[in-house]
């Protein structure tokens, strides 16, 4: 089985937000929830880079570690998913997540935020693959169809890569070697406790 990861090559990201739009459309994500977003650091200054960020599907995921009801699980492809029927919307995963990935349908109102929602790596949830129940709760399950996450598939500059960690790391490594520079695989050290050695 593959170890699925995301890799963002910040030298290529042009902040077009196509990944965000693709994600929203594919899973019919409601207003106010952003499973993926693009953050621009050092905006208008030297060292400006845009980074598309979603759940990184961490090794030893912090969300899973702190969840009071233990609603997270890791698939055979190392994708971190959660069971919305078990989630109580406490918000602990958001406090622990380094990437701000967990999202909640409502704000405040005595903490009744509703069930947490996050990037599923286009792999649905615990319901049977590609059923209506799964689609309503988690969005489409492209992985079950043999496709990769749509955000990366639709990335016009191929800044955002999704797939087996070893494969996408090799693609990135070759790019950096050819161009002669790179700003690191953003989030990898935090999520996977490793960087891409060039």
């Amino acid at each position, binding site marked *: 089985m593959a170890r699925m990861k995301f890799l963002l090559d910040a030298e290529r990201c042009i902040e077009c937000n196509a990944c965000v739009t693709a994600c929203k459309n594919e899973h019919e994500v409601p207003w106010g929830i952003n499973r993926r977003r693009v953050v621009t*650091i050092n905006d208008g200054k030297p060292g400006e*880079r845009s980074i598309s960020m979603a759940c990184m599907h961490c090794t030893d995921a912090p969300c899973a570690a702190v969840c009071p009801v*233990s609603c997270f699980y890791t698939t055979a492809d190392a994708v971190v998913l959660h069971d919305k029927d078990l989630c*109580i919307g406490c*918000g602990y995963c958001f*406090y622990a*997540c380094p990437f701000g990935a967990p999202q909640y349908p409502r704000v405040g109102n005595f903490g009744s935020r509703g069930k947490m929602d996050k990037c599923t790596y286009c792999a649905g949830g615990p319901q049977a693959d590609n059923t209506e129940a799964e689609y309503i709760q988690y969005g489409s399950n492209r992985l079950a169809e043999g496709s990769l996450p749509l955000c990366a598939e639709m990335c016009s500059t191929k800044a955002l890569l999704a797939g087996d960690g070893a494969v996408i790391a090799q693609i990135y490594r070759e790019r950096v070697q050819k161009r002669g520079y790179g700003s690191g695989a953003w989030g990898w050290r935090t999520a996977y406790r490793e960087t891409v050695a060039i």
Partner: protein
Amino acid sequence: MRALFLAFALLVAAPLAGHAQTNPQVSGTPTSPTPMMPPVADELEVLKALQGGRVAGRISIPDERAASLIQPGGRSWREFHNVTLAWVGGVAVLGMLALLAVFRLTKGRIPVEGGLAGRTIQRFNTLERANHWMVASTFIILALSGLNLTFGRHVLLPVIGPEAFTAISQWGKYAHNFLAFPFTLGIVLMLLLWAKDNIPNGRDITWLKQGGGLVGHGHPDSDRFNAGQKGIFWITVLGGAAVAVTGYMLVFPFFFTDIAGMQLSHIIHSIVSVLMIAVMLAHIYIGTLGMEGASDAMTTGQVDLNWAKQHHNLWAARELAKGRGAAAPADAKAAGAD
């Protein structure tokens, strides 16, 4: 000469100008990450320069929290929640239970010396008792639902299964959120009702030195509340205030503060809570199992006179004096008049 001066001036001004250009806050840029973002794009360099601070930038969606790219603080919070809190809470609660069990087995129940007098004296009026039980009952539910969030996953979940555990935790969360309000109200009322009798004074030092209450054998002078009870009172009021304030921060997420503030609120809330639970276990023990005659004070409100003289001699003497000095009711007859 003039050209040289100009060149020099430019040289001095250049970094200043550069600084001025980079500093102005672009609207929509979050001001929270301290120290400043370094002018580099490499992830490792940025993380190193921020020394554990948050990596944040500009975002085109309205949700300000989304502008935070990486918050390493989450790792510390996870460590706190899973390790520190579990240990502190576990040791405090189980340690206190073990201590009380040992106490009960070695020392037994503290009796009323000379037996019960049979005559009683009013210790707490209806308002005081009603308020005490409002705080007590809400505290117990808040404590159990709170402990469930930290320990339930390891203790209860394997026993009752995920669906039932989620149902219990969900209801526990609602109870925790809404019962916070009567609990807070009760704490405020407690402060108003009992603060005047709980101001520490010199007698408390003597009482502690002589080891009153549970530990010692002496009977140091005590007014309405002894030093131990004053301790319980201030732990309840001040600890209650701390958990109330931090609790409302958590109940209205991100309304008052950012992610770091939410994490800190949770840390204060949970640590103060588990320590209060341990203290309240001792309070419950001495009020019921640990001491003969003590529970009457909060049930009927009437305590035995000998109990009152033994544990609160100054207060009992004052209350009795009040009774002697009081004018007799108009229809009262002198003893032996009929």
